[in-house]
């Protein structure tokens, strides 16, 4: 079904496991030697990104629909699980994005290690996360996918639980249990899929857990069984996305996580869920996908509206951004639910765009918190006066997030809405079409969602950036105090927990964007603009794989 290119078979393994090599080195560096610890970690992440960039240069863009750098090896022979990895146009952007985000987050962490410190453990967890994320995007075997998918769980749990905000323990536990619940059912459905496809196969001995096997045999599963198996996967992936009504862990996790955790969570981890739908659930079980698509579509649109309304009700900036994630992921899922090339392309674009934009928003939230020791919207005002650069960046990201044409967010949202006007439908489709009228209603409601999105983001911007600073922060602006940039944040960084205690501590002058922030943010900001102006760069990569993927539905 898929062509494979078996070139440079070592490349992906290197990219995936290089961070672990860095972890091994770091284990032998004493905890007290903080700058060496950070240095080694950042070097590892940089080296990993170099491998990623090299992968991009070696990628054959003419064959973006085929798996490249493909390699397969025995892994767990008795259960027919193999170590099979490969990369196509759908995976490549996400794979590289995960590396970029990890590096940028680490650079940002150079002087922003959240309380209670211990950069060694913090950086090690980020490197482990990197392996899990990159591995998930290249795995071409269901068991391998599952293992990588789960590897991210514990590091993120500890990241939220140890370095998070006041309510971190509750938030981290909730995150963990929700995800675990989803993945347990997902695992059962993976096994069930394997057993069922094997029983249908002409040669049961040939059955294995590679994606290829399921792509070729998944469609033979009887519709009723397939619907149940899909249900298990649906819950597993939907929790991760997160889709309404499985989303309740997200606002808590995002709000309580340290900035770095929020960024990684928003930029990459949520994508594991949507990626799972695109890569696994839908192509493996097309007969169930057409039955589930309306459900996904309806839940997606509920998510859009619910997330937007949630945003309007928030008083905390970070929590608002978290709820906006629920809405944005709703657009992504709506695109996927249409089962059309346009919709899935939009969804994939939306995944990357949301990663860049929401990642940035969380960075900004972190920096605002660091300066003002609060994220309460009503206490913040006049950012443009006090920290103008930060204010402008926030403005740009808010515009990108609400889907302003010319910035990346637009190309995730607009085509998704467009595609839902014309979902998979018509006569003589092998697995049936979707209800036109239902999806057209969804289009209308989703379009309303964009209006709400503009509402909550502009309102947020108006309240925080415009106007004059509130009385408590008046007179602390950055004007004329640039020498303050390079030092003095360690004291702030260590105080993430004690807002109130630092009411008086806030009398230091506020500094504008510092150099670590510039280094960490510039690439993201550039990417938001570039992909906004030239979306074709990414659509070109996705399209061949997506066309291949939806061929099975027989639509156009």
């Amino acid at each position: 079904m898929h062509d494979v290119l078996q070139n440079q078979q070592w490349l992906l393994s290197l990219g995936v496991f290089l961070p672990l090599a860095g972890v091994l080195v770091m284990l032998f560096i004493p905890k007290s030697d903080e700058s060496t610890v950070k240095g080694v970690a950042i070097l590892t992440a940089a080296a990993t990104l170099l491998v990623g960039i090299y992968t991009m240069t070696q990628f054959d863009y003419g064959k973006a629909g085929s798996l490249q750098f493909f390699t397969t090896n025995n892994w767990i022979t008795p259960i027919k699980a193999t170590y099979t990895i490969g990369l196509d146009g759908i995976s490549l952007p996400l794979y590289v994005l995960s590396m970029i985000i990890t590096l940028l987050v680490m650079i940002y962490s150079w002087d922003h290690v959240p309380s209670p410190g211990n950069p060694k453990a913090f950086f090690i967890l980020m490197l482990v996360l990197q392996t899990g994320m990159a591995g998930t995007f290249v795995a071409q075997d269901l068991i391998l996918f599952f293992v990588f998918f789960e590897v991210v769980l514990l590091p993120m749990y500890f990241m939220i639980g140890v370095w998070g905000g006041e309510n971190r323990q509750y938030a981290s536990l909730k995150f963990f249990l929700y995800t675990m619940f989803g993945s347990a059912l997902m695992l059962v459905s993976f096994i069930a899929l394997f057993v069922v496809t094997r029983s249908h196969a002409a040669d049961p001995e040939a059955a294995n857990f590679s994606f290829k096997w399921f792509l070729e045999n998944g469609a033979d599963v009887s519709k009723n069984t397939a619907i149940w198996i899909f249900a298990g996967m649906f819950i597993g992936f939907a929790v991760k996305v997160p889709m309404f009504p499985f989303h309740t862990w997200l606002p808590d996790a995002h709000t309580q996580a340290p900035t770095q955790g929020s960024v990684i969570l928003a930029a990459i981890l949520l994508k594991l869920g949507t990626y799972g739908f695109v890569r696994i659930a839908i192509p493996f079980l097309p007969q169930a996908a057409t039955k589930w698509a309306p459900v996904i579509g309806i839940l997606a649109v509920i998510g859009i509206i619910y997330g937007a309304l949630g945003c309007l009700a928030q008083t905390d900036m970070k929590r608002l951004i978290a709820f906006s994630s629920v809405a944005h992921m709703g657009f992504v899922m709506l695109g996927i639910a249409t089962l059309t090339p346009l919709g899935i392309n939009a969804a994939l674009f939306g995944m990357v765009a949301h990663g860049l934009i929401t990642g940035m928003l969380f960075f900004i939230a972190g920096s605002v918190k660091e300066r003002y020791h609060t994220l309460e919207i009503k206490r913040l005002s006049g950012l443009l006066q006090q920290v103008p650069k930060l204010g402008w960046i926030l403005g740009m990201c808010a515009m990108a997030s609400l889907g302003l044409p010319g910035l990346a967010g637009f190309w995730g949202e607009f085509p998704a809405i467009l595609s839902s006007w014309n979902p998979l439908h018509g006569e003589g489709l092998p697995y049936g079409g979707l209800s036109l009228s239902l999806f057209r209603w969804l289009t209308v409601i989703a379009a309303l969602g964009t209006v709400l999105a503009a509402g909550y983001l502009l309102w947020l911007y108006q309240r925080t950036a415009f106007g004059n600073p509130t009385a408590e922060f008046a007179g602390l602006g950055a004007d004329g105090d640039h020498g303050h940039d390079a030092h003095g944040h360690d004291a702030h960084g260590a105080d993430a927990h004690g807002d109130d205690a630092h009411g008086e501590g806030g009398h230091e002058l506020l500094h504008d964007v510092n150099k670590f922030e510039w280094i960490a943010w510039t690439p993201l900001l550039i990417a938001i603009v570039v992909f906004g102006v030239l979306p074709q760069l990414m659509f070109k990569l996705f399209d061949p794989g997506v066309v291949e993927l939806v061929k099975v539905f027989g639509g156009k």
Partner: protein
Amino acid sequence: MLGSILAAVGDFTAPKVDYHAVAPELVLAAGICVVLLVDLFVPEHRRWITGTLAGFFMLGSVLPIVTLAVTGSDVRDALGDGRYMVDNFSLILKALFLLAGYVVVLLSTNELEEGGYYQGEYYVLLLSSVLGMVMLASSRDLVSIFVALEFLSIPAYMMAAWRKRDRKSNEAGVKYYLLGVFASAVLLYGMSLLYGLAGSTKLTEIGKVITLTGDKVGVQVVAVAFVLIGFAFKISAVPFHTWAPDTYEGAPTPVTAFLSVASKAAGFVGIIALVYLTFPAASDVYRPFLWVLAALTMTFGNLVALKQKNMVRLLAYSSISQGGFILMPLAMAGTGDAAGPALRAVVTYVIIYAATNLGAFAVILAVSRKTRSGEISSFGGLFSYAPGLATMMTIFLASLAGIPPLGGWYAKFGAFRAVVDAGGGWGYSIAVIAAINAVIATAYYIMVMREMWMKPVPDGDVTPIKVKAPVMAALAITGICTVLFGVLPGLVSKVGNLSDLAGAFGR
């Protein structure tokens, strides 16, 4: 020699013993004698020698297992009558028992030395108990199964009460003893019925009779049920688990580790032999029976574990619930073509669980030397002053919870795979129950992790913990196994690849 004397007495013909096949047992038996003698002649301050010797003999008897594994035929009939078989299945489990025994010796060394307990006697009992397990792995006959089972249990009763002046330890011993004996009685009653029905004690012979047909179906059902109940006590399956938490909590920590791992594994070995050899045609009886037992065990164990405040009690309930996961594939062993996967799942699970659980107990041992407490809260802030131990404990707990890439995930995977393979309503329903339970279980493992990583140190005492060398060795062994089995499960599933076992059993 004995044989020739006996032969001269009557018409007794000496069985032709395959000495290579029983070499592990012989080494252990020699070890028991040597340790006992050495204990008599070394002065008190040198008694640690007995521990070293015990460990040495444990490892020593692994050697013949290795030679047996690499040489000769797959199946050896040690006594020539098919009642004591040495096949891959039994070799793997013997190795497991011996290595687990070795780790327990490592854990016991300092504990016993400092507590001033009776070291020599302790190691003799430990060796005896392990010998019982090693014998059980090969037994294919009701009598030898029963003898082996008692041989492994009776020393364990005494070891549970080893802290002589501690009331809790006494309670542990007495409870374990009374319920253990009760279980033996039930088991023996079931066995006597089996013998009555078949006129033979050989498992495969009985298997030909227990077909649930004919006019004695009622007795057959009762016999199967009684035998299974007897073993259910041993593996502390709900509702026959009541002894386990108290015994685990009261017994010295190394003994608890031993009971929760090796003794439990031995119980499963017994059930495997019976299910596969004696009840293959009675799956209509044992399937619902074990299904209910498995579902109850994992659910109840989990729910009670959630409320525990004491670390050892938590692990006791966790091990009860893990037992449910191990039982699950066995329940489906006779359904569809799940026999092979089920057996592999059980053996793999038992091995991985042993490594992980022993490791967890090793950490508890190391930590409680400092904190002098078994409460979960005493683990507060462990990460801040003992990051190594906290990380190890996290690895073990995550493995128990079944989070990849640590060993436990593969164990759980195998169990799921087997029941889904069996399919049907029974299979899928228990798979879903188990999936839900797997999630509940993570809640309490996470609770401990939270304590270690996120809570403050309860008494503010942050002096680092010095881990003694033997405990460190135990941690290294179990830690490496836990990670390795998770990353390359091929290793353990290769030794668990028992496709030839059916042939061996079929004799």
